[in-house]
């Protein structure tokens, strides 16, 4: 029984230590969990005062169309995954517009977005069941960009195809 008490004591100390670390963190967690969608809405609200609701979702494209756009550099490609994943590997020419840090990344890339306003935008994330690309694409539509598409295959399909990849720092 003394051992169980010991485990409970360690759990309580861990809880206190976890909250203390969070208090001094640069990006502390709130007490109550927020879903990625809720966090994203909060980020978007910091960019536009009143986001228009009920926008149609961004159209999707398949792998051949995405590959052509990458090879011909005919579109702005955005990687919606968190920065650590982008650094480990991304589609050549893609820029990191992470869902989790959208407001910050959007402001960082505003000059690029303005300079290439005539180009279509394609957003991808991990692939399969990831929602980040859809969230980022819809946010770009909300912010006034009209030609935004989602490559649903994402990084999973691109890397599996054995095509060239880039890696390194966030651009």
């Amino acid at each position, binding site marked *: 029984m003394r*051992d169980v008490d010991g*485990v409970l004591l*360690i759990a309580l100390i861990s809880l206190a230590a*976890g909250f203390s*670390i969070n208090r001094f963190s640069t990006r502390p*967690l709130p007490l*109550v*969990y927020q879903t990625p969608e809720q966090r994203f809405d909060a980020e978007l609200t910091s960019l536009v005062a009143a986001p228009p609701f009920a926008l149609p979702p961004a159209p999707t494209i398949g792998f051949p169309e995405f590959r052509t756009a990458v090879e011909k550099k005919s579109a702005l490609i955005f990687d919606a995954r968190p920065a650590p994943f982008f650094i480990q590997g991304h589609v050549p020419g893609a820029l990191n517009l992470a869902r989790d840090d959208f407001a910050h990344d959007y402001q960082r890339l505003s000059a690029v977005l303005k300079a290439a306003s005539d180009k279509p935008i394609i957003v991808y994330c991990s692939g399969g069941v990831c929602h980040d690309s859809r969230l980022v694409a819809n946010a770009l539509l909300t912010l006034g960009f009209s030609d935004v598409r989602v490559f649903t295959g994402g990084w999973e399909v691109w890397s599996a195809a054995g095509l060239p990849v880039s890696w390194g720092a966030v651009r």
Partner: protein
Amino acid sequence: MGSVVGGRATRLVGGRTVMSPDTRTHNYLVPAIAAALAALFIYAGAGKVRDPLQFADAIAAFAILPATVINMLALSLPVFEIACGLLLLVPQTRKIGTLAVALSSLIFFAALLSALVRGLTLDCGCFGSGAPSRPRMWLELGLDVVLFSSSLFAYCRLLGRDNNVTLSASGSPSRIGA
């Protein structure tokens, strides 16, 4: 002639008390298991403590806990895992460490099994973040079984040793063999 003194099976050879080879293996087995578990738990905890937000998302994907508990767990569990690892490395606290690992592995197993049964595909967040994958979930379920059985084995061995030490201290060591 054999006996158990302080949890160690011994026999007299040429007037000297020596441990049997089997016992010697057992004496190294528990510290070896503890060291392996400690390395795994410290590695798992360190990976998550740096990014509690990703870990909170991984916990939420299980759809078991309410929003009021998720962040609390995301902040405390990585610290708890590191603490377990440190407890396992110190001989005096090893027993509590093995029990903590056994109990937490059991909880991880139950959570992962419930997600698999409900048809969810997720990244358990066990060792930092990764892509959601059902084959990996089955692999991690197997790992939980290994963690649970090895930590429970180590805990029982340490519990047996403590009981024998208590018996020895009271002047009536248990005896086995002729």
